[in-house]
């Protein structure tokens, strides 16, 4: 069998949070234009706080510097960037 390439806890993930999805989609569009990888992701509950927006942008550690630089330059609206240990685990086998 082939083991999935597994990200470990050592990897850092960055979630960009928004007040609403319009802001989120706008930044997603900007990052796409600039060719910086980011994926739309449901906001993890542990960092969502009082925000009612379900979407966030998931950025990997290797891309976060480019994202920050891009945000600096193009000044899109966003709420915050949260760094956390990678909690994605394809071997958990807990579904919903």
């Amino acid at each position, binding site marked *: *069998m*082939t083991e*999935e*390439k597994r*990200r470990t806890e050592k990897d850092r993930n960055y979630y960009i949070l928004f*007040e*609403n*999805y319009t802001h989120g*989609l706008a930044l*997603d569009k900007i990052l*796409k234009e600039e060719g910086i990888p980011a*994926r*739309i*992701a*449901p*906001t*993890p*509950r542990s960092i969502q706080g009082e925000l*009612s927006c*379900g*979407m*966030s942008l*998931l950025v990997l550690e290797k891309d976060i510097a480019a994202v920050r630089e891009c945000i600096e330059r193009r000044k899109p609206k966003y709420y915050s960037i949260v760094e956390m240990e990678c*909690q*994605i*685990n*394809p*071997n*958990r*086998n*807990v*579904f*919903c």
Partner: protein
Amino acid sequence: MSDYVKMWEDLGMDLETHDQLCQVLPTAFGDVYLSQENRPEGMGFWDFVVSEIHGIRPSELIEAQKNGQKVFGTFCVYVPDEVVIAANGIVTGLCGGSQFWVPGGEKVLPKNTCPLIKASVGARLDRTCPFFRIADMYVGETTCDGKKKAYEILAEDVPVHVMDMPQMKRAEDYDKWAHEIELFAGVVEEQTGNKVTPEKLAEAIKIINNKRKALKRVYDARKADKLPISGKDALLMMQIAFFDDPVRCAEMCNKLADELDQRIADGVSVFPEGTKRILLTGTPLAIPNWKLHHIIETSGAAVVCEEMCTGTRYFENLVDETQTTLEGQYKALADRYMKNNCACFTPNEGRIDDIIRLAKEYKADGVIDVNLKFCSIYDTEGFFVERALKEAGIPVLGIETDYTDSDAEQLKTRIEAFIEMLG
């Protein structure tokens, strides 16, 4: 800013219980979907829809209702969306695919009812899904005994219209289904206050045909030797197709298909070479049921096609667009829908032919025949499915499962062994 909590409250939902589902979804979606590498960019749309799953589309539907449109909730690929759209109504799928809703269903249903029915009834009665709250009318159908009786229970809580499905495919059964569609049109007209005219129905037929063509384009891309998309991603697209606006759905699927075609031209694949190709056949996988795809695709194989209601049965065969009278159109609709091969028909040899054909078209190395627990018609038909595949020299694994996580390890062993068996 969209405040969904207010919307859910207005819908009379049980917020506290609903929140439990909202809590686990990001983790499960992360494990299953975001763990994948090199996904098509176009999947961003569906990732977005999942992120806002009980918010964005429900708020669109509520907005439409404020403008006088009616929402019809359906549970089966035999119910013709075209008729609803022709009367300026909206269709939304209502099948429950999570264990979260099952205990609610078990309050009123026998334990040995299939999880799809239990989850659907639970989602309504426990008030934990906005789509089940929003729909003005549920449209049922007599595909199986479990559903028939469940609709009677639901009808005590919400208006339900049940279409009487033929269970054989004789000429008179086609006529009967055309007649049922005509009766349904009458119900829809009454609910919406709008007339179904030949012009409007012709337009609706085109809309849904376009959606079918777009879904098919994505599926066709999965026939490529180098798979440009995972089975999981294709499944997500398919599951959400039941809930989305059909025109937008077609647009997004076409966009994704364009990207996949480009990937095929560039030789981009999301799986390593030599990954075994699996055709899934059997009972539907309603959202968010991603268990089997995930287990298969983390065990060294890829799902290349689903011969399921959440799969080829949803988009194969188009409705004849040349009819200009309602009578001709109802007949054309009946002809298309009756081509679907559900295990509720007897005999149902057409499904066996479909499975063998799809296994060849999608170059499947093996077939996994999935049966949702207590679905006796698909379970029994599995006898013919497995026999025919063995005769055709195509390895097959029969699996019975439900929505719980508890059999994940056992399924993994079975599926890994099956993949090892494929060599």
